[in-house]
């Protein structure tokens, strides 16, 4: 198996290297394969006939895609033959909601972000508050020792969690991957994870072999992922062949977990009950570094470049791909009309305790960072630490009948 892949990688190596250097058009031309008849058929319809009707749409793709950009990009393909139409299908099929602006497009492989940069760059800028991939560089920093005041008052913070994603360079992403590629991602990841030792040692549970009781247990513990039902993911083809090559790995202490082949190749999660975010982040960084080391030993690496940081399926997760958050009780603050503004200025977001698109149960909220790109991992976790401490302080003040202040808004990017 490994030799087949090294051979294949060698063949694609130049394209991959070109792509990671940002030389999009060279990479496109390098390995283009296409049936002439099918290509001719496509030409029967000019791009204007194919341009999607986006008048009722509210997502980043619809806001940025113009007929001119579409015409320019429609007939291009990445070296894996992924097309623009495939990237935007999810945004066309899901017009969105006036109050919630989704991204509306996905990447099929690493080169997508280069070949279709004409549409991806403005979408990235829109989603990541002005981060300009053409001119800016993304900082990566996984030195957890830099975090200060990272232990929260456990009368308020029930649990702490940090997650990110990593993609394995050379294999297509979940919207595009074939069954064989997906199985290869699983194989590479599981082999690497089996090398973890000490408090990180653990084992793998393939979704296909799990029984329903085990599965429900893992969901209730907030460990497992379901077959996607969200049309945002379904329309992007991420549920194909379910549950083939999907699974979850976790360490024996159940505080370091990896999801395999859900919305990204891998999602890495460090979590524990209580408020010790510093320890959660320390384990997160240590685990990530060890996993990266283990895949390097076998000739693999993560998708990363200096423009966009870590490359993931959804543009919203570029950069750090990091969401650091807590489940925190805020019975008084959550009823205060200034709550949303405080969160906004602290660059935090709230979710229900079931994750994205769920509602809060009782007064307990999932509070996490808004940003992913343009700030490093350490910066984002510190931002969450400072922000949550501020929220707890507000909660305590309101308990005592004191007034609270809306904090000044945090700066977007350091230049």
């Amino acid at each position, binding site marked *: 198996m490994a030799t087949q892949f090294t051979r294949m990688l060698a063949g694609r190596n130049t394209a991959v290297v070109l792509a990671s250097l940002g030389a999009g058009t060279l990479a496109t031309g390098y390995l283009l394969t296409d049936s002439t008849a099918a290509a001719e*058929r496509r030409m029967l*319809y000019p791009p204007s006939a194919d341009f*999607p009707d986006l008048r009722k749409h509210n997502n980043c793709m619809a806001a940025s895609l113009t007929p001119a950009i579409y015409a320019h990009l429609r007939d291009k393909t990445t070296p894996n033959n992924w097309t623009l139409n495939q990237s935007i299908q999810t945004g066309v099929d899901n017009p969105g909601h006036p109050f919630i602006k989704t991204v509306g497009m996905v990447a099929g492989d690493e080169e997508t972000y280069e070949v279709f940069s004409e549409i991806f760059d403005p979408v990235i800028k829109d989603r990541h508050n002005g981060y300009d991939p053409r001119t800016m560089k993304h900082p990566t920093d996984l030195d957890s020792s830099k975090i200060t005041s990272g232990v929260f008052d456990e009368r308020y913070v029930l649990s702490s969690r940090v997650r990110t994603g990593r993609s394995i360079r050379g294999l297509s992403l979940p919207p595009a991957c074939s069954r064989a590629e997906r199985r290869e991602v699983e194989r590479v990841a599981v082999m690497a994870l089996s090398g973890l030792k000490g408090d990180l040692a653990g084992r793998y549970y393939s979704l296909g072999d799990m029984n329903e009781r085990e599965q429900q247990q893992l969901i209730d513990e907030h460990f497992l992922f379901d077959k996607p039902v969200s049309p945002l993911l379904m329309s992007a083809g991420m549920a194909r062949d379910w549950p083939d090559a999907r699974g979850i790995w976790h360490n024996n202490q159940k505080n370091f977990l990896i999801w395999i082949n859900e919305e990204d190749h891998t999602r890495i999660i460090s979590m524990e009950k209580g408020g010790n975010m510093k320890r959660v982040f320390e384990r997160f960084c240590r685990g990530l570094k060890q996993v990266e080391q283990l895949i390097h030993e076998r000739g693999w690496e993560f998708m990363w470049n200096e423009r966009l940081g870590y490359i993931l399926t959804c543009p919203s997760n570029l950069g750090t791909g990091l969401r650091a958050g807590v489940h925190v009780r805020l019975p008084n603050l959550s009823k205060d009309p200034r709550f949303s503004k405080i969160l906004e200025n602290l660059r935090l977001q709230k979710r229900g305790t079931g994750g994205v698109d769920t509602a809060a149960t009782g007064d307990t909220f999932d509070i996490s960072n808004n940003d992913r790109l343009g700030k490093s991992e350490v910066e984002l976790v510190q931002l969450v630490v400072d922000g949550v401490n501020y929220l707890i302080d507000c909660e305590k003040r309101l308990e005592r009948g004191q007034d609270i202040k809306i904090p000044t808004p945090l700066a977007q990017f350091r230049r």
Partner: protein
Amino acid sequence: MPFGNTHNNFKLNFKVEDEFPDLSKHNNHMAKVLTKEIYGKLRDKQTPSGYTLDDVIQTGVDNPGHPFIMTVGCVAGDEESYEVFKDLLDPIISDRHGGYKPTDKHATDLNFENLKGGDDLDPNYVLSSRVRTGRSIKGYTLPPHNSRGERRAIEKLSVEALTSLDGEFKGRYYPLKSMTDAEQDQLINDHFLFDKPVSPLLTCAGMARDWPDGRGIWHNDAKSFLVWVNEEDHLRVIAMEGGGNMREVFRRFCVGLKRIEEIFKKHNHGFMWNEHLGYVLTCPSNLGTGLRGGVHVKLPKLSTHAKFDEILGRLRLQKRGTGGVDTASVGGVFDISNADRLGSSEVAQVQLVVDGVKLMVEMEKKLEKGEAVDSMIPAQK
């Protein structure tokens, strides 16, 4: 289909065993027929429009099915799919259509005068009568595969053809895009309109892409003849009315269909048809006539009879709920229609419905009077 030929050549770098889907938990026709040998033989092929084997089978891989319900598990992306992927589709067609062989020929008969009777189903029991079929327009790829440009071209051509009809067929087109929610709800309640597909059988095959772009419904002023544009097939043609006059419904169906076909032919885009498979449609289950002729009929007593399903089987009929496929019956009212599509003509299939429903209503009346119906149970048709 988005996941089509663009990635297919790259997949060939992987061995067959690595790409072959895990069908161990599956119960559909595709899973029964597909072997590694067939997969290996067909996986590097594509139709002229670029449709591949994985496109054909994806819906069957993603939907393992149910132990009691055998779905087809594959779709065609264009007319040529049935040729290029013969080695997979012929055995599936045979399985689904009662042993239909690759050498068999299908008879088409849309002469409504050949139907015997059908105008006297008791309206106290038969609440409504309906005949539907599908048609694909030659020169365009099918709903799982077509691009927005193609879908809009199909819509444009269909609207041109339909709006030129006159007499009892005079009507108008309602594009889904510009329908108000109120209009839409009304049409659904009238049993006229189709929803955005939610069934994973359809969504996994890519048929809901770009919804509602290029979709719409045309109906005549009398609301007795309707055409769905760009749902699961290019066109679904439906004739219906309240009561039991299936003969009249079938007449209108045949006349309307012939008129539409003439207009499409004039534009050099006739219907997809061949003498082996009859009318070519997206799902292999609808090949042949693509015809489902049925009634909504009250059979509260007969439906609880121990032999109800056996009776239906012998009459070559099937039951559904009044919401259509995959719904349950409400208040003892069933949707009863022909089970066959391929290997018998339109007239023959509607004849089965007419005769079978007539018999079942007689049986229902007997059961109401407290009499036994065992002597009336028919032989296998």
